[in-house]
């Protein structure tokens, strides 16, 4: 029941925000913040009071809380929500970024404030639903649902080509979702033929015996939907448009959380439901990941529009995640989770910074600005922090993620990992180019700028300070995060892991912390980064 409230609070908050617009434009903002705060309190309460599965394996497995209701019993559909460490981390990320999005759009959004915050909160509700739903129909329901408010955010409050970008975003994600629906239904019917029961329950479907050929096609159906959302080359082309045209809050939510639903889907569904097929497909997926890393970085470097530049860097970072998921080693999966959180923070922050620059300069065009460090010293310093985090400097979050990913993937596919690691070099180039072009050199301020330029105020400083503290904390002491996701990842690996690891050669050496032979044998083993040992 508590988990249902985690979804309902933003839904209700959105409704209240619409109504509250009558009593002033600031009312919806405070209501949005309050809704997110209540949600945070709820999820923390659930975590604290739940069975203590976060830190130790318990009889409950990795699950902290669950909700189960019959929904459409005639079709075997239930309203089933389950929370584990994985979902918890992603939900916390979503909530924090939503709160920061509200704060950062305090000045940017002046029209139809109530509706804007309602859409923001409804997107959040859909995203939280995706992270919690473990009935495949319910998952698909939320998966499609979260697109609608995001579509309105882009189409209504976006920049110049907002309608084009919004429709493109909707078509790509909805279309790929329908392909996933067919895959879901195929799985459900095969399960029904094997067992006689019609069900969309994740746990029931997980053990469905499948012929390799069918499993491969169904896996591909799921993979397609998640690859579009992630996004990975060659189905990434919606992303630069959507991110660029969305208002700052929309870009932050898109990059920070919406993309992560793709990664989450790969982790939660693709590999555990179809372990053999995923293993067979792993080289291709890892190749796509490596290509995304380099291609995203190269395109990022070529952009003049700052938002587009940051958007393409997302493609590059998400390539690492794809590589890690399909390497499917304990190290790489932990790395993927760190990368997901770190990318959410650093890229979200970069979008916020670019939004602040645009508010002041009324342009995002790098060819028309330069040398801002003198006029905006504090903003420039903060921007530098996030750009450097994005390029993977040790001590900041992204480094931990990318390092663990490369370490974990190396033994699975040496050549592709080496290729992907070049992405770290490429990241240095685009991130430093952004800094150099925007902040250094001779000062160039476009004529339409809002003069005199004011440096960041208290509200903006708070937002960015929180984000810098988070990225630094993640870089220096990622252990709480790793601990939080360890049980969940362990359970996923043991559900699928036997096949994935044993089939990928001598598994023992690349799953440190696991039982010999790479088999978790049902008991999630806690992974500690300190016992990771040297690279194989």
């Amino acid at each position: 029941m508590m988990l249902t409230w985690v979804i309902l609070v933003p839904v209700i908050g959105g409704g209240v925000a619409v109504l509250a617009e009558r009593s002033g434009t600031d009312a919806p903002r405070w209501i949005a913040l309050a809704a997110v705060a209540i949600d945070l309190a709820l999820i923390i309460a659930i975590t604290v009071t739940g069975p203590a599965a976060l830190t130790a394996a318990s009889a409950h497995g990795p699950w902290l809380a669950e909700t189960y209701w019959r929904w459409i019993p005639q079709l075997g559909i239930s309203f089933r929500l389950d929370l584990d460490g994985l979902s918890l981390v992603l939900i916390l990320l979503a909530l924090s970024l939503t709160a920061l999005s509200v704060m950062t759009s305090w000045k940017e959004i002046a029209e139809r404030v109530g509706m804007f915050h309602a859409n923001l909160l409804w997107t959040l509700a859909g995203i939280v639903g995706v992270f919690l739903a473990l009935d495949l129909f319910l998952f698909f329901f939320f998966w499609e649902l979260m697109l609608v408010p995001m579509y309105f955010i882009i189409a209504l409050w976006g920049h110049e080509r907002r309608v084009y970008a919004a429709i493109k975003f909707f078509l790509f994600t909805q279309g790929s979702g329908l392909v996933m629906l067919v895959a879901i239904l195929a799985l459900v019917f095969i399960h029904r033929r094997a067992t006689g029961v019609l069900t969309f329950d994740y746990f029931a479907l997980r053990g469905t015996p499948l012929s390799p050929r069918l499993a491969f096609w169904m896996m591909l159906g799921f993979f397609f939907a998640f690859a579009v959302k992630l996004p990975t080359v060659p189905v990434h082309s919606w992303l630069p448009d959507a991110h660029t045209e969305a208002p700052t809050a929309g870009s932050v939510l898109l990059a920070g959380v919406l993309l992560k639903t793709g990664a989450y889907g790969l982790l939660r569904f693709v590999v555990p439901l179809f372990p053999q097929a995923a293993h067979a497909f792993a080289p291709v997926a890892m190749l796509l990941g490596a290509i995304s890393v380099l291609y995203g970085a190269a395109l990022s470097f070529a952009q003049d529009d700052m938002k587009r530049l940051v958007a393409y860097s997302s493609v590059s970072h998400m390539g690492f995640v794809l590589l890690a998921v399909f390497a499917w080693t304990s190290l790489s999966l932990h790395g993927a989770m760190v990368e997901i959180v770190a990318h959410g923070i650093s890229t979200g922050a970069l979008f916020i910074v670019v939004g602040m620059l645009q508010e002041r300069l009324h342009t995002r065009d790098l060819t028309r600005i330069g040398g801002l460090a003198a006029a905006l010293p504090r903003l420039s310093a903060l921007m530098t922090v996030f750009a450097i985090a994005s390029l993977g400097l040790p001590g900041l979050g992204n480094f931990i993620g990318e390092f663990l990913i490369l370490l974990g993937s190396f033994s699975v596919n040496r050549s592709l990992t080496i290729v992907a690691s070049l992405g770290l070099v490429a990241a240095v180039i685009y991130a430093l180019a952004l800094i150099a072009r925007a902040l250094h050199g001779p000062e160039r301020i476009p004529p339409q700028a809002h003069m005199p330029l004011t440096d960041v105020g208290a509200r903006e400083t708070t937002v960015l300070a929180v984000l810098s503290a988070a990225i630094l904390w993640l870089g220096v002491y990622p252990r709480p995060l790793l601990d939080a996701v360890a049980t969940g990842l362990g359970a996923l690996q043991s559900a699928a892991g036997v096949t994935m690891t044993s089939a990928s050669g001598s598994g023992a050496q690349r799953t440190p912390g696991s039982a010999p032979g790479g088999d978790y044998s049902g008991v999630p083993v806690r992974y500690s980064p300190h016992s990771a040992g040297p690279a194989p």
Partner: protein
Amino acid sequence: MSGADLPVLLPYLVLAAAAVVLLLVIAAHRSHTASAGICILGLALAFAALFVAARLAPRSVTPLLRIDGYALFYTGLVLLAALAVALLSYGYLRARDTQPREEYYVLLLLATLGATVIVASQHFAAFFLGLETLSISLFGLIGYPRLQRPPAEAGIKYLILSSMSSALLLFGIALLYNDFGTLSFAALTRPGALGTATLRDLSALTGIALVLVGIGFKLSVVPFHLWAPDIYQGAPAPVTGFVAVVSKCAVLALLLRYFLATRAFDAGTLTLLITLIAVLSILTGNLLALLQDNVKRLLAYSSIAHMGYVLVAFLAGGTLAVEAVSAYLVAYAVSTLGAFAIVGLLSRPDEPHDAESLSAYRGLFWRRPALALVFTAMLLSLAGIPLTLGFIAKFYAVVAGVGAHLTAAVTALIVGSIIGLFYYLRVIVALIQTPTVAVERTAGATERVGSAVVAALLVVLVVFGVYPAPLVSLIQSTAGRLSALPATAALTPYDHH
């Protein structure tokens, strides 16, 4: 037929009686409000009579009609849709100086009676009778504002094309009779062997093909769809809703009964033909809808595509098909009626055309947010987005299609849905853009009745979209009982823990 059959026929008798009473009342005293009231009361009483009939169902009344759960479910759907149309028409006609207005409701009652007879037919004679009652009343309804050009033109077009298709249908029926010596569906089972047709079967084969042409015309599926955009555009908005919902739902319900009764699903040729029609309808409807700037024409093409989607569910055969088709038709009826209700409410009485050009919808969100919100919900439902009934329906259709391994049809459905999104979103985008033309509000009772209907449709759309279990069990306990074929076993829900 015996006296015991009368209670089962009560819904149909009430409808017929209402039409007669209305005619007599008009003869004595002309009053728009009274006529509309009698019509609405008649429809409501007929709906109430369904519960009387339900206690005695299933029962065959003469060899012509079979009143079973299936017939009652679709009769209920038709009656509720007609009720919505009657309420919308009241506001629509009141705002216009079309004189006289009273006979409109007689035609509406008769058309509804025709549709209800169709869904209960188990014999070609009853089908043809119902179809002609429906079609002839529709000519009148479509061209009712006879002094204006677009409706008059649409009425004539429908008259000619519909008569043509009826003639083909009748010839097909004659050929079937020639071959089988009977017109009862249950006795026409031999077409099950049509896959291996010999020369002697040729007349039966031709007969079935001609029957399918006639039915295809009523459903406006490709390649019999050419009339739809023109008639949709020309007819008054409430009538367009009636044509799109009532006549199509009734004919599709009949087609499903016919196919199940004659085991036509076993005939490879027929299923191949329907697959072809479904795929073509989905692709043609959606692609042509992309080109439209006229909302009524856009909805016409989208309804062609929707008939294609229903046929995908239809093709699955068996119990699941009956359930999926029924769920889909309910969703289609609610969303389509809602959309045309909005078109009607936005139309200005002093203009010959309804509010049909896309520019009339620009910025509606900022002028009339409630209407725009409902219209958005209806369009999202047609597009199959969650929280709406359309999502559940499309899901059901895909379930049926995937369950029956209809690869081509399901692929077409997916592709069609993606294309469909594009034009639905285009309209939604227009709704939220800054307005270009100023359209002032029309106020008064028109809006109150119409708004109430629209609000009710929205509630149904969202409530069943979020919690469809009651609707599904209603369908399973009524329409779903139709098929006794062992092909698809009843669904067993998964028991948790």
